[in-house]
């Protein structure tokens, strides 16, 4: 009887523990850190360890809260920050569209290939995502450089007389971003397209619709969820991308991830870096919430 009672008590606690362990981990190491970023974005730079002032101060009997909005004013005043945000958004938007244009036909072809080759295509698509982004961006450095393989090839063909300057320009950043993020577009699109019911297409074709019409009126609208998921998986991380603009971009490449990195590692200005992160999060809040909603729907299916 005693054992029975103990069991009864331990059942709900077991359930609670299963919820509590990942919940507390994520609260502590994912959510709480954002609160700290917000806090330190209101602090001032100070030469000390850690290099920022405290917000809460005891002065005599009173608790004083010092909020310094200077960092945010700086972000508005110095045009380099605004240009970096706009530059990031522009690069992210254009490369997301490019990924969609290239990735959609690829995902469509994989979903329509025979089951035996489908697995091979999928693994070929996934394999680059298991390889470091750093290495994939680095691979392009040797190809796009002034004496790189692409220029040598074009010179040899006689298409150009002078080597093209591609590395350290925005063109190289676009190539690098599309290259590294293409699988993140293709995989969710494939996951969506493979679930489609083929009988709809057959019905449309029986009724005399042409292949393109049945694709455009049936397949494409049905794949909306996959398109949004893929676009978010590309767009959001690219806005904060650091490695690709650093390795492939040049002085004209202004991206916010790179600026944040420089504020933090070169200028050691943690408060300004935090303010940059807060504004970036605010910009990305709507896309992130959209992504979470789609993912939650996917999980409930």
């Amino acid at each position: 009887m005693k054992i029975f009672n103990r069991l009864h008590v331990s059942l709900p606690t077991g359930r609670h523990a299963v919820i509590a362990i990942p919940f507390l981990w994520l609260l502590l190491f994912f959510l709480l850190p954002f609160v700290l970023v917000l806090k330190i974005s209101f602090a001032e730079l100070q030469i000390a360890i850690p290099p920022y002032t405290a917000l809460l101060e005891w002065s005599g009997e009173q608790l004083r809260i010092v909020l310094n909005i200077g960092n945010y004013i700086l972000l508005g005043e110095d045009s380099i920050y605004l240009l970096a945000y706009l530059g990031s958004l522009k690069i992210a938007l254009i490369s997301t569209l490019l990924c969609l244009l290239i990735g959609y036909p690829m995902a469509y072809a994989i979903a329509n290939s025979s089951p035996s080759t489908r697995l091979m295509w999928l693994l070929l698509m996934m394999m680059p995502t298991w390889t470091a982004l750093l290495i994939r961006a680095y691979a392009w450095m040797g190809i796009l450089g002034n004496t790189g393989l692409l220029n040598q090839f074009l010179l040899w063909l006689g298409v150009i007389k002078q080597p093209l300057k591609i590395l350290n320009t925005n063109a190289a950043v676009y190539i690098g971003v599309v290259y590294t993020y293409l699988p993140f577009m293709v995989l969710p699109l494939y996951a969506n397209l493979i679930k489609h019911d083929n009988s709809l297409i057959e019905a449309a074709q029986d009724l005399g619709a042409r292949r393109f019409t049945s694709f455009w009126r049936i397949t494409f609208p049905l794949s909306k969820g996959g398109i949004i998921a893929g676009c978010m998986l590309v767009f959001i991380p690219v806005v904060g991308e650091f490695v690709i603009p650093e390795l492939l971009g040049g002085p004209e490449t202004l991206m916010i991830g790179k600026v944040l990195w420089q504020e933090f590692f070169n200028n050691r200005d943690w408060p300004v870096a935090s303010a940059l992160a807060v504004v970036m999060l605010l910009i990305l809040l709507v896309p992130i919430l959209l992504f979470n909603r789609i993912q939650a729907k996917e999980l409930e299916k």
Partner: protein
Amino acid sequence: MVRFSFSRLMLYLGMIFIYAPMVVLVVYSFNASRLVTVWGGWSTRWYSSLLHNKQLMTAVFRSLEIATYTALAATALGTLAALVLTRFTRFRGRTLFGGMVTAPLVMPEVITGLSLLLLFVAMAQLIGWPLERGVTTIWIAHTTFSTAYVAIIVSSRLREIDQSIEEAAMDLGARPWKIFFLITVPMIAPALVAGAMMAFALSLDDLVIASFVSGPGASTLPMEIFSAVRLGVKPDINAVASLILLAVSLVTLLLWFILRRQEKKRRF
């Protein structure tokens, strides 16, 4: 029936686009010349010089160590999170929980890295831990974002499996933890392996987050590679990158064999 179509053509071109740079990288890692863009004949000298590069080898082992811990912890945490997402549909804070599981998938790395560093600094001030940033802090950071990937992989498997077996065991009086380890775990084992591999690869690949949360003298392999290539292409880095590509391709090939066999079994 193979017929020409636009999408097929795009698939072939896309695959060439993805794999050509990697092939070029591997070919040039066998270049004898120190000038990386001039072909000087075949040689394996950059591979043998790697073994003598003590700093790089230390970083390799440090990265492998962190990746192993990350794979273990993220698989455990991610599986718990997946169980919560698929089996406990009603509890307070579920929306918040779901958001915290999926948001790390898209969160820009600079934000995650900066925020975790600020947490570690604040913790060191408050409770005196962690005094030194290094393997432990990188491990915690990697576990946190890898958990999201494991949770997504495992929860999709959890939704596929037949729950009636678990229910039967419950009716026969098995305790929940016993059902989980004797019935659920064997059924979701492939997803657990896939999740662990994913976490291992993510940890091994990460540069940005590790750079933020690491301390002096604790650099990982990507950090070493990054500081070497910032200023240009280096022949010995070509060799390291090729070895990483080789390892990933071998794992992919192995996976292909296993999955193909499974699929054939399913068809008969």
